């Protein structure tokens, strides 16, 4: 067990899986970074934020493939390679760039198995950064996991910590279905103890990071950390929270969410994605349908407003859900009392 950053945890997962299985290859824009440059350094970048640094040196140019800035072709190529014997991990850099290659994910990779009557396997992982907090503005900051969650045939992972990232990425690479693996770009320097040996965390099994009696908080990705911080503060005021990290939005561990809501009767959902048709609405619908009788208060959703992600720091801070907003939402549901009928 060693303290590792989110970035190092992902790099280590990739390295260990590439060592284990020669069919695992990496491709993407600047995953090595430097091919064709005048310095002669072929892995100058190792990914735009250095996540894949060093892998070219260890595994060579046949397994770490820089691509042109050409998402439709290389994401499609990753799908085609996956269907014909390789296990590609393609990096889409910023998830916002999915606008350039959605067909290859949505109409090709996701649907092969079903359309072809169960005869295809597409063991593809697409890694991409998501999330606001870097002043990267509207085209480099979105949290698009609901968009992928909507598509049958895809699995969608939103890891909340370095430990989670390593185990879930190894699971993703070993999975035989197409997996979208989304990394919050603000978290790359977060550190925690991460086992040195490879390990897997199964999909569709939520993690309870806190257990409490009063309010259930379901949070995704980076929001799990905020939810934990809010829970710590609320504990001091006697409000005890369960915090659920679903880990994957598809599959979704509905059973754990329902069990917890049945115990606490109060639910807050924290989701960094745009509020319409996002995970917060999905979980709210699930609970409204399956645990209506348990509810002691209206469900509260903590999400950004329905706007593009703004640039200016003051606006971006206003946009992203934070500990204070979560705390306020939890206090409001904890204080809610059903009106007695007159």
């Amino acid at each position, binding site marked *: 067990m060693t303290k590792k950053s989110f970035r190092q945890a992902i790099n280590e997962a990739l390295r260990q899986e590439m060592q284990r299985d020669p*069919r695992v*290859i990496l491709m993407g824009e600047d995953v090595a970074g430097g091919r064709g440059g005048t310095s002669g350094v072929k892995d100058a970048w190792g990914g735009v934020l250095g996540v894949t640094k060093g892998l070219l040196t260890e595994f060579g140019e*046949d*397994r770490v*493939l820089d*691509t*042109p800035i*050409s998402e*439709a*072709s*290389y*994401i*499609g*190529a*990753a*799908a*085609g*390679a*996956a*269907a*014909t*014997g*390789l296990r*590609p991990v393609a990096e889409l850099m910023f998830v916002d760039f999915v606008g350039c290659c959605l*067909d*290859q994910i949505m*109409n*090709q990779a996701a649907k*092969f*198995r*079903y*359309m*072809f*009557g*169960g*005869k*295809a*396997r597409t063991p593809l992982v697409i890694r991409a950064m998501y999330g606001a907090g870097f002043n990267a503005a509207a085209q480099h900051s979105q949290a698009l996991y609901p968009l992928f969650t909507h598509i*049958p*045939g895809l*699995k969608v992972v939103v890891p909340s910590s370095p430990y989670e990232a390593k185990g879930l990425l190894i699971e993703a690479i070993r*999975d*035989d*279905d197409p997996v979208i693996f989304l990394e919050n770009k603000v978290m790359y320097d977060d550190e925690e103890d991460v086992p040195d040996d490879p390990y897997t965390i199964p999909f*569709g099994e939520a993690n309870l990071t806190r257990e409490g009696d009063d309010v259930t908080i379901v949070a995704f990705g980076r929001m799990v950390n905020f939810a934990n911080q809010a829970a710590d503060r609320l504990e001091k005021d006697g409000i005890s929270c369960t915090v659920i990290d679903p880990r994957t939005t598809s*599959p979704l561990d509905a059973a754990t969410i329902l069990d917890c809501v049945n115990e606490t009767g109060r639910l807050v959902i924290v989701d960094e994605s745009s509020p319409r048709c996002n995970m917060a609405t999905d979980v709210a619908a699930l609970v409204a349908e399956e645990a209506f009788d348990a509810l002691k208060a209206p469900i509260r959703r903590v999400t950004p407003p329905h706007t593009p992600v703004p640039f200016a720091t003051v606006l971006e801070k206003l946009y992203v859900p934070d500990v204070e907003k979560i705390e306020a939402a939890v206090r409001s549901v904890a204080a809610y009392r059903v009106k007695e009928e007159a």
Partner: protein
Amino acid sequence: MQIARDILTRSYRSMRTIRDFEERLHVEFATGDIPGFVHLYCGEEASGVGVCAHLTDTDTIASTHRGHGHCIAKGVGVDGMMAEIYGRRSGVCRGKGGSMHIADLSLGMLGANGIVGGGPPLICGAALSHKTLKDGAVAVAFYGDGASNEGSTLESLNLASVWKVPAVFVVEDNGYGEATGASYAVAGNQKDRAAGFGMPYFECDGNDFFSVYETAGEAIEHARKGNGPAMLHVHLARWYGHFEGDAMTYRAADEVAKLRAEHDCLVNFRRKVVGAGLLEDSDLDTIDTAVKDEIEAAVVAARKAPLPEDADLMKDVYVSY
């Protein structure tokens, strides 16, 4: 050109099978018993067959929405295909894909594709698999003049050249993208596009099996030898509309009649091989009869085949979930 007798008979049989399969679908579709859309390959048979004659099951192809011909040319059986098109459980995709998604990965058939320009990126990846796994195989993208204008196709020409993978891009230029003529919709020309991406360009007469066979052989050999991708531009014509039910009001009244009378690849083939003494008329007649029976049997079987069951709805979305 020397072509082994078994290749000639196999290729003729494959072209005849495609022709009869499609002509029969034209008739059956009009009865209303076939769900969805079908896009027929009549008139284009020599292209798929002339290319696939150079391929084995290890080689990969990706097809288009007009995919029946490529499937048959790559060895997919007509019974499973017909059942699929009828939406039956015994279909090659268990009734889950239909005409536009027939695939058989065990034969290197990566699927017909309902998305114009969907195939070329996949073929870059299949070619990468062949290169990485060192199996000596090539990957072939069939696409039309319409798809040649898709960004995904143009990006794929670039990527295949950058990666130097064994891919062949076969442009089946039938002169129409749906109802719009290629003379309007394709700027410049395919030859310059190939040159622009640094790959060799080959072109051939898609009404003549021998022209396709010979030229495709060169393009595929170029890729198979590790020299990177090549483009093969096949000039041909479709005899039916974009899809069945298309009244083809965008085509001159006598266009298709002239194609059928003067540019029939099956008639051309027979004339050449019999004229050169390579095969007898009777050899080809025997094949015609056998194929006729095979298609009839496929239709009869498909009509009688069981429909998918309710439980099939949820099957095969994932390997595991």
